């Protein structure tokens, strides 16, 4: 088996009968037993994060500070925990197990991330190459996060509430108009010009109007988010459904399907890979609109928090908030992909993302 894997790299598709697809990853290739040199190399790779964390801690404790005021002590604890954690993981991975596989794959990335932290600290706190207050060191950002987590958490809650409301409304509306456009020529005739003219206008450009039309700023922002989602979802759904192979409909008709069945059991599932692209694009633009709307109109949320702390020149809090935004939005995207994996399970082994 293991000898096959190296040969298999580069060969992608397997035809003929049912064959379970195997993923030949870097990890499996590295984990192959032959040769002491290879094993040693693997061990060294898994040790890298320990080295990186030790260096980070060493630099933080030993190197003299250039940016003097208010060194945050929790950062030292964090680095200590990081070092201990990496060491424990390394120790566990000395025996062959799933942990070893996982660590082998992720160790270089983990080491690089910790290395980046060290680099950040060097150019700010340690060497003072970048000016304060705009470029605080990692210790101060951690401090800001620990100090202000309640307000950041509340802001995140408001942002997510707005995001989900707007996204769900926009995605549903986009699905409905997209299906109607893809299915019926009449709908396509009347809706597509509106789409072509209104769609490309950035949703944020509607902010002044939205603020007047809707009674609350929450409703105004939610509808802007919805508008930003609606456009790509409609376009992709419409085009996905219009491009479903006609033979699918013909076969379905001879099997006794009526129009309703054709739409829900043939057109939508067949078009879903394209529909998903629309959902993904819509999610991207909804993030943008969300943050901008909060910065301008809504008095809550992560966008509001950023512009507020910027007003106080508390840049460490700006960075803390940016990190939270990155974490939340990437999790939301991961969630969307999980949803896709469930719905498009039939594409597994057929398409690579």
């Amino acid at each position: 088996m293991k000898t096959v894997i190296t040969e298999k790299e580069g060969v992608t598709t397997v035809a003929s009968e049912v064959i379970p697809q195997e993923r030949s990853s870097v990890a499996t290739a590295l984990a192959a037993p032959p040769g002491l040199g290879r094993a040693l190399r693997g061990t060294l790779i898994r040790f890298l994060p320990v080295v990186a964390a030790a260096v980070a801690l060493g630099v933080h404790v030993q190197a003299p500070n250039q940016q003097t005021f208010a060194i945050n002590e929790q950062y030292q604890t964090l680095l200590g925990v990081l070092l201990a954690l990496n060491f424990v993981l390394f120790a566990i991975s000395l025996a062959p197990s799933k942990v070893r596989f996982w660590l082998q794959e992720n160790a270089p990335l983990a080491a690089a991330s910790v290395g980046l932290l060290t680099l950040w600290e060097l150019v700010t706190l340690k060497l003072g190459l970048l000016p304060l207050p705009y470029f605080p060191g990692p210790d101060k950002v951690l401090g800001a996060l620990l100090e202000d987590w309640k307000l950041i958490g509340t802001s995140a809650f408001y942002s997510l509430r707005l995001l989900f409301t707007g996204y769900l409304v926009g995605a549903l509306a986009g699905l409905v108009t997209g299906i109607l456009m893809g299915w019926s020529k009449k709908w396509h005739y009347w809706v597509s010009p509106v789409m072509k003219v209104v769609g490309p206008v950035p949703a944020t450009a509607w902010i002044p109007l939205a603020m007047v039309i809707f009674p609350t700023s929450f409703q105004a922002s939610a509808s802007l988010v919805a508008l930003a989602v609606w456009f790509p979802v409609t376009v992709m759904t419409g085009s996905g459904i219009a491009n479903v192979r006609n033979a699918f409909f013909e076969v379905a008709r001879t099997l006794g399907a009526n129009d309703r069945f054709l739409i829900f059991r043939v057109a939508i599932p067949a078009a879903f890979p394209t529909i998903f692209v629309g959902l993904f694009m819509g999610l991207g633009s909804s993030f943008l609109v969300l943050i901008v709307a909060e910065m301008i109109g809504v008095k809550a949320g992560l966008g509001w928090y950023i512009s507020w702390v910027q007003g106080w020149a508390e840049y460490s809090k700006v960075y803390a908030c940016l990190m939270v935004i990155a974490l939340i939005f990437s999790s939301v995207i991961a969630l969307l992909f999980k949803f896709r994996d469930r719905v498009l399970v039939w594409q597994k082994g057929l398409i690579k993302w």
Partner: protein
Amino acid sequence: MVTNSSAALQEAPEQSGAIYVKDVRRVFLNAKGEETVALERANLEIQPGEMVSLLGPSGCGKSTLLRIIAGLDKPDAGELYLDDAPISGPHHERGLVFQDPTLFSWLTVEGNVSFGLKARGIIKEKKGDVDDYIRLVGLDGFQNAYPHQLSGGMAQRVALARALVNHPKVLLLDEPLGALDAFTRMQMQDEILRIWQDRGTTMLFVTHDVDEAIYMSDRIIVMSPRPGKIQEVIEVQLSRPRARNHPDFFLLRSKILEILHFAGEISENYYL
């Protein structure tokens, strides 16, 4: 091969499934507005339980005729009946299998085979049929496989099971084995014949393979192009099961090739 004792497959072959095609004409317009006669005055009568093939070169209208019978295309003139009911559109009584299996790629083998029962809202009553038909086409154990995991032959078996699970009176096959390799093809011919003899369903299939037509059909409708029309109807008198290497088989083969003007000429120096 597989003898199945379940109730679904044991239903007595119905004495229905007769097709009448009377003076059917179909004209296509090209981009310039010129007429191409795809089918001219086609007349056809198929008995219940008969296995009939439409044979001819491309452009002879054989697929057009099949699509019209399936209800996917409308004739410009003429009348069509299944038993006593006029054909006006697609219906599950007239099952269809294309050359491309056209399996719903988002559904498993089981999902594909049960599609018709779900579409007609009778899946609850007929749940057992799905497995029976998957077994009938020899794909037991592949219920949860997705179409892209199947070979061409297996996919075509699923398409066959998907059409048959609806108990169609007539099964229409449009070059069903055209995309398969020669050996899989011969194997599938036997499979289709076995199912036909089991179920007694009327079958009408399009082919451009003379051997296939002789091996399988009770009657061969030979068609010719420009304009597409029925040229000759040949009764295949060979007893079943048939041998692909029987002298009578070759005799019939050369007769059909002559009708189609594809026999070729024997040059004199051939014997020297």
